[in-house]
């Protein structure tokens, strides 16, 4: 379980997270959604220890993460952008991470073959496409049997076949009682995969609950519409409006 208490993060004058309080339950898929710049990645990075909080406490399994790094043995992370030392190969990076992590439980065979990565793992990163690097990030996140998996816009650079396999992978992990945190702009993906939704707007949590409860609350069948309504409700310029979708169209929340 991950607990976030009174989390504040400022970058200079820019207040990115404003007193965030959040509990992420074990064995569930929690999606963090919100427009660009709402603080999703910063929240994830603070949980990972990549960003230092201005104030507030984060606990993973009841222990504070401040100045600790071994707790990351429990976490598998797939970042938004995948870049690696260009002269190294996928296999070399995997063996480096293997030697760093405590766990001996490592199983990548199925993921590698399903994502058609086996032949790519011997090539230096400078010869690999962005999508392939993204897939290698997925291997790093999933193959170590970590109990918490954090995915930051995981399918953004993947082709439809890999993306579909990736979703199956997430569902399988979910059945294995893993705690999964996911950010995505693709609302159909969020609806398909997640149990809980955290809606973040300008560094503040505006909604937390199950997908079903949000849909019922907003009397919608599609998550995209329900989220759009949440956004327009919280948009001071628009007030409570049902017609304005805050510039959202298509499948993306904020890339429009």
């Amino acid at each position, binding site marked *: 379980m991950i607990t976030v208490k009174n989390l504040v993060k400022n970058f200079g004058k820019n207040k990115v997270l404003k007193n965030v309080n959040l509990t992420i339950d074990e064995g569930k898929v929690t999606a963090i959604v919100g427009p660009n710049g709402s603080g999703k990645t910063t929240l994830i990075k603070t949980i990972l*220890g*990549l960003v230092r909080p201005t104030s507030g406490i984060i606990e993973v399994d009841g222990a504070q993460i401040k100045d600790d790094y071994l*707790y990351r043995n429990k976490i598998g*992370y797939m970042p938004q952008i995948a870049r*690696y030392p260009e002269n190294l190969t996928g296999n070399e990076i995997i063996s480096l991470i293997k030697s760093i992590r405590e766990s001996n439980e490592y199983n990548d065979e199925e993921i590698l073959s399903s994502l058609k990565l086996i032949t790519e793992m011997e090539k230096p990163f400078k010869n690999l496409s962005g999508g392939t690097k993204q897939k290698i990030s997925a291997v790093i996140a999933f193959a170590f049997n970590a109990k918490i998996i954090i995915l930051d816009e995981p399918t953004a650079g993947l082709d439809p076949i890999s993306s579909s396999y990736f979703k199956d992978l997430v569902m399988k992990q979910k059945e294995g009682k893993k705690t999964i945190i996911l950010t995505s702009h693709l609302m159909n993906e969020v609806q398909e995969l997640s149990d809980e939704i955290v809606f973040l707007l300008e560094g503040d949590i505006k909604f937390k609950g199950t997908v079903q409860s949000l849909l019922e609350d907003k009397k919608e069948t599609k998550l995209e519409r329900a989220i759009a309504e949440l956004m327009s409700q919280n948009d001071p310029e628009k007030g409570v409006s049902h017609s304005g979708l805050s510039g959202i169209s298509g499948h993306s929340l904020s890339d429009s």
Partner: protein
Amino acid sequence: MKLVKKILLYEIHNTIRSKWVILYTFFFFLVGYGLFTFSGDVNKAYISLMNIIIIVIPLVSIIFGSIYFYNSREFIEMMLSQPIDRKSLFLGIFLGTAIPLSAGFALGFSIPFLLFGKVGQQIDGFILLLLIGVLQTFIFIALSFLISVKQDDKSKGLGLAILIWLVLAVVYDGIVLLVIYYFQDYPLENAMIILSALNPIDLGRILFLMKFDIAALMGYTGAVFQRFFGSSSGIIISFGCLFVWILIPFFLSSRFFKKKDF
């Protein structure tokens, strides 16, 4: 320390395969070969080599270090999401950048020396030049890491790196000359020694010049320099200063790295 070793090995692997390092090694080989073969006097070849080392190594190290650090940003992020402490990762990346670059220089410089440089005559000059080159590499990689950790904007960081090199390699000497000109009525010898210690490039140059007895050409100041830098305690102090030039930027950047948001 085990973690540092692991990171270091992978970083060395990555850097050694980069074309930059191979080109750099080849450059020193070619320059050394050219100088030893075409200049009749070994001592003259040494002085020319010293001038190249003192200008090229700081420039390449500070630029290579900055580019390398900026390009490693996402990789650092990925590594920091693994169970590794920031201090070990930083030390691993620092040594993994500085060691291959120093090795590239040492290899490129040593081969022509061993083949054409009359080893028996100038072995101490060779060792001194090698040491100065390696220390300059570590100093300017440390400075480049300090810039890159503090400045997130890559183009600003690279600009700052070039500026620092320009100040230390070129402008600083102008400032020293100005000081000498305006304060010529005062005894400046000790002030000159302090001013030299504040610039790692000058320090390397003077150390080498003292070895070759060219200090006599610099008049009274040269004699003071000779007395200070030529004595064994002077040499130890100078090397000490060069080490301080590595340690201060390294520890500062390591501190900033520990608190940095990625």
